[in-house]
Every structure is written in C-alpha cells, then in structure tokens.
C-alpha cells in the first residue's frame, strides 16, 4: 500500500547529500561540455552585438522573433516553482515534498536565463540600463530627468520579473536554512564558513522552526499574486498591441499563465526524473510523485486547451478581413500549418494520451517523452503566436513578410537550455536539490490506520 520505505534520518542525509559531499565522476566533464555550449553562444551573442542585429533573421514586419519567444518560454518554465511549492504547500499535498526544491531552483535559474533574452534582443545591451530602472537597487536617473514610461507594458515587465526573482530567491533561501545548517555541520574549512553564514545561525530549536514555517507559508501566499502577475504582464506585452489582431485578445493573461504552468510543471517532472536517474534517488522521487504530477498535469493541460480554444475561436468570431488573413496564414499556409499541428499535438493530445494511462504515468521513459513533448509544444506555441501575428499585420498586403531564423539565433536558443542545465547541476553540487528536512517531516507524519482488514496509508494533520 504505502510506497517507499521510511528511512532513518542518517540514511536520508547520506543519500541526499551525496551530490555535494561525494559527487559522481561524470560531473565535471558534463558541466564542462555544457559550459562549452554556453561559451559558443556567448561568442554568437558577442558577434551579434558587434555586427548588429542584422545577423539575425528579423526584418520589418517581424520585429520580434526567436529571442522573445525564448524569453516567454523561460518565463513560463519559471512558473512551475511557485505553482508547485506554494499551491501544494498551502493545500497540504503530501506528494509535493521531494519536488519543491528542484522546482523553486528551476524557477530562479530559468528566470535569470529569461532576463538575458530581452537584453540581447535590443542589440545594444548596455543601453538597457535606461530600461531597467524599475529593477531593485538600480537608481533612477533623476539628474537628467529621464523617467521610464509607466504606460509601457515593457516597464511593467521588468518590475514584475524582478519582484518575482527577488521573492523566489527569498523563498528558496528560507526553505534552505535547515539544510544549510546540516551542510555547515558536515563540512570543514571555507565551505563550512560559507554554509555557516548562509545558515544564519540555525540551531533547529522550536522557535526557529516556527518562524521558518510561518515564513514559508506567508511567502507562499504572498508570492502567488506575484506569480500570476508576471506572466499576465508578459502576455500584456502582446495583448496591448492593438495593431496586431491576433495579439489583441482579452484572454491572453490567463491563457499565458495556464500555459506557463503547463510547461513549467512538465519541466519539473522531467527534472525530477533526471535527478532520480543521475543521483540514484529512487527512494525519494518515487513513482507516486511523478504520478501525482502527471495527474495534476492532466487538469492543467485540459484547462490550457480550453483557453487555447477560446483564443482561436474568438479569432474567427470577429469575421474581420485582417484577422481572417492572419489566421489563415497561421493555420493553412505551409510550413506554419505543419508547425501548428505539431504544436497542438505535442502540447495536448500526445501527452494527454500518455497521462490517461496509469502504467504510462508510472513509466519514467514514457513520462519523459510526454514532458519533453509538452515543452516543445509550448515553445512552438509562443513562436506561433508571435510570428504570424507580425507577419500578417493589418491589410497592407504589400508589407506582409515572414521569418526565417539565422544560425546565430538558433545557437543562442539552444544554449539557453544548456545554461539552465549547467546552473542546475552546479547548484546540486553545492546545495541539496531535495529538501532534507521536508522529506524527514513527511516521514514522521506518515502513519497507517486499520479499516476492517485493510491497512490504509494516512497522515497526521497539523491543524
């Protein structure tokens, strides 16, 4: 009945700290390889910044393309962390325990990666200092009277993203305190001092636990509105654009948020499967956890499909010539129609078919395929929103265009995936990606009750 055995605390420590205290041999070669990919991309970006944005495939109707697609994609991935940690923590779902830390860390790193995209997208990154005055600790340029235009969604954007970044870093740090203390006690020399500093004098007395729990719950509740606002504001970058018919849709905010949750939770499931395989955490990331994520994803995916359906049907609803032209480009002209089919199939129908079958949900290989498929689909979703809308903007048919990415863009896009993977791996080298104390707490609260002749798993409730 009960999956997984309750392990003694020492065993939990030993297993979960293996990635830090006893790293596997493949670690540095893999990091070096990923680092090489990232370096190549830095080279490509440097070349682009040196020569000008002309080296990309962007052109007059299609002024936003791969970089912005990738930006929205990574912002979307970053929504998993809060979705899982905060909502599942507030709803006291027991199966959240091993997933929270990985999700939160993925949030932080994917947000950082996402922020890189608009910076290089402008072509002259050093000028973006005038843009990010809304970021924390960046002073306003009072002296020269240069103010950001608060009416612009592009000013709302950095405000929301930096708030989210700050609060999710805080969220991770609060959750890390007890584990930092564990590491402090198991290291010597300089690492010991660094962990000691980060643990902020954690002793594990009941007063500290109480504050840590209260802080966790408060942050969960407070971060939820931030989380919703971030992707809503990203969507408003598009839906405030009156000239692009397919963007100017009232549903964009919730549609983007649910899409972000969809891709983010899939990404977390994939990361958990990877962690289980590479660090041998079979006892912690169990089939029931992946199964729980898959069942959550079934709901999220269907909700996403509903919003997608609304977005499309109200595109046709207007019976306006310009929007019909845009939609027929999107849905009927090759190669866009093929991408469209791949997108809908891989975002909804393929993974849904997998998740509906219980053995498939519990097969890690098949689950990985479903999760990757969702993310390919969600990347294409953003791409298929951004490009056709711009390529068929208004009825000036003389100005219609299309888009073809250049190698520079493709290299940079691929490297962002390497970058996030590398950062995650490096994080796992210094801090545990599965919360030690949360696992132990779950084990303590676990119990069983006897109903008739059967033993049923049960948990103690704290309220």
């Amino acid at each position, binding site marked *: 009945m009960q999956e997984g055995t309750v392990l003694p605390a020492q065993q939990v420590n030993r297993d979960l700290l293996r990635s830090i205290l006893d790293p596997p041999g493949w670690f540095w070669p893999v990091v070096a390889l990923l680092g090489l990919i990232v370096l190549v991309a830095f080279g490509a970006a440097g070349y682009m910044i040196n020569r000008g944005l002309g080296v990309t495939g962007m*052109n007059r*109707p299609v002024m*936003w393309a791969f970089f912005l697609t990738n930006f929205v994609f990574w912002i979307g991935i970053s929504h998993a962390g809060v979705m899982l940690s905060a909502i599942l923590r507030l709803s006291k779902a027991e199966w959240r325990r091993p997933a929270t830390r990985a999700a939160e860390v993925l949030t932080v790193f994917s947000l950082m990666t996402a922020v890189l995209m608009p910076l290089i997208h402008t072509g002259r990154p050093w000028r973006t200092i005038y843009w990010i005055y809304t970021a924390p600790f960046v002073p306003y340029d009072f002296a020269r009277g240069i103010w950001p235009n608060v009416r612009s969604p*592009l000013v709302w954007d950095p405000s929301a993203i930096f708030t989210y970044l700050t609060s999710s870093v805080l969220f991770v740090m609060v959750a890390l305190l007890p584990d930092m203390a564990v590491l402090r006690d198991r290291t010597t020399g300089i690492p010991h001092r660094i962990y000691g500093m980060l643990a902020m004098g954690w002793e594990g007395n009941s007063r500290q636990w109480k504050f840590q729990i209260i802080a966790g719950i408060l942050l969960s509740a407070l971060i939820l509105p931030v989380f919703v606002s971030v992707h809503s504001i990203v969507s408003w970058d598009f839906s*405030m654009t*009156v000239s692009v018919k397919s963007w100017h849709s009232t549903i964009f905010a919730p549609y983007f948020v649910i899409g972000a949750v969809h891709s983010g939770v899939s990404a977390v499931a994939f990361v958990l499967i990877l962690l289980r395989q590479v660090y041998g955490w079979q006892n912690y990331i169990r089939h029931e956890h992946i199964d729980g994520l898959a069942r959550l994803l079934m709901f999220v995916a269907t909700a996403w499909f509903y919003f997608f359906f609304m977005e499309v049907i109200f595109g046709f609803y207007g019976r306006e010539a310009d929007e019909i032209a845009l939609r027929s480009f999107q849905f009927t002209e090759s190669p866009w129609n093929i991408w469209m089919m791949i997108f809908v199939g891989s975002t909804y129908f393929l993974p849904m078919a997998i998740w509906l079958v219980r053995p498939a949900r519990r097969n890690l290989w098949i689950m990985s395929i479903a999760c990757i498929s969702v993310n390919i689909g969600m990347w294409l979703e953003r791409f298929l929103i951004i490009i056709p809308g711009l390529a068929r*903007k208004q009825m*000036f048919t003389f*100005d219609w265009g299309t888009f073809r990415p250049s190698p520079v863009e493709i290299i940079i896009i691929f490297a962002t995936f390497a970058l996030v993977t590398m950062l995650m791996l490096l994080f796992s080298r210094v801090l545990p990606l599965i919360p030690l104390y949360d696992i132990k707490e779950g084990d303590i609260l676990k119990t069983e009750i006897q109903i008739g002749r059967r033993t049923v798993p049960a948990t103690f409730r704290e309220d």
Partner: protein
Amino acid sequence: MVTNRINHKWGMVVDLDKCTGCQACVVACQSENNLPINTKDSFIQRRAYEWIRIERYWEGEYPNVKARFIPIMCQHCENAPCEPVCPVFATYHNDEGTNVQIYNRCIGTRYCANNCPYQVRFFNWWEPKWPKTLRNHLNTDVTVRSRGIMEKCSFCVQRIRRGELTVERQEGGKLDHKTMGERNVLPACVQACPTSALTFADQGDETGPVRKYFDDVNEHEHHGDRTTRGYRLLEEMATKPNVIYLKKVDQFPLTNGGNHGG
C-alpha cells in the same frame, strides 16, 4: 533658437488621383534624411529604409489589370499606438502635432514598430554605411542614426525649423500663419513630387491648402457624408492621423469589378 514660435499643427494631404508611382518622393526623402542606400540585399532581407514608400497594388485579373499606387509615410497620428508602448519615452507627440523620435533615447525594443499599424517605423539592423563617393552628401541638419535605433518620417522637421529661423532672423518677420505660409515650408517629398500629389501645410491656417480636407474628414464620420474625397488610413483604429488621402477618381473603372489583392 526660435523664441516666439506659434503652435503649428502640421498636416499632409495626399491626392491619390495625382500620384503616378514615380518614386521621386522616395529618392528625395532618402537624400534629405541621411538614409543609407538601399541595396538589393536590404530589399531581399526586407530591411530597406523608406521613410516614405510607394505601395503598389494590382486591381483586377490579368490582362485586365490596373496598378494602384499609394505613398505611405508616418501618419503622425494624434492618438499614436506607438507612443504609449515605448518604455523610455523615445517617441512622443510634440506640440506641433507631429510624432517625433528621439534617437539617443531609443534602446531598441522595437515595440513601437510592432504597434504601428502602418508599418512606417524602420530599425537600423546594421551600422549604416555609405559609399565613399557619397561621403559628403550627408545632410548636416539631420542626425546620422547608428545601429539599434528606430527611425521614421519626421515631416522633415529640420526644414520646418529652418523656415522658422529664416522668417524670424533673416527676414525679421513675425512668426504667424501668413509669414510661415509664404516661406512655403516643404518636406523633401512634397518638393520633389512632379505632379504635386502631396500637399503640406499648417492645419491651423484657415486659408491654407489642407484645412478644408481636415475639417471635412473630422466633421463627417461616415464617408458618404463627406464633400471632399478625403479619408484616413485605417480609420476604424481611431488613430487620428495627420495625413489625409484623397480617393482616386477612376475615369475608366475595370469592368470585372476587380479585387484588391497584393
């Protein structure tokens, strides 16, 4: 600096009946405003700079076809969609009714270009270059834009300023509609147009050449009520452009009706 400037509200009227699609305006604009030379490559990449461009549409089916031309430049909308979306105020509306771009504020988000329904904003994808022989032709009154900057038609604001300076300083006159009207402030495209299809003047000037068209279009929302041939591009967007187009009067319309495909 001109001190006692009156508030102008500039406007342009484009008579499509007179436009022959000769592209003289395009060339004039090119040399007046320091636009880089459009090469074959830049057209193929769809990155040509044409602050004013002639769009060509075919009407009817071959062989029974007619070519239609429409010059499109920045419409200097009163309610410009490009303005609110810029995060750094690089584009704004000045008190003369024109939409101006501040080059050294622009950071290159290109949001304004996305939100422009007329697609008249141009991004400097490359550092602009001129052949050696053209080094000395650059207009000293106009900034040379570097890469990463958005640019667009300015209604030749440098010519307007020079007109004002001439009236006030050199001729010692007082700035008003009459004196400015006599100075005949002309953007390069208007000056170059061989058929006088383009007219540029102050809308505030009661007796000026553009006033009656603006009055007519502003007062009558429905095309049927208008006494002139005037209309604005994409009127349903309510951007209120300061450019008015006059409909083509076709003496010999196509018999098969024709479609407006591109």
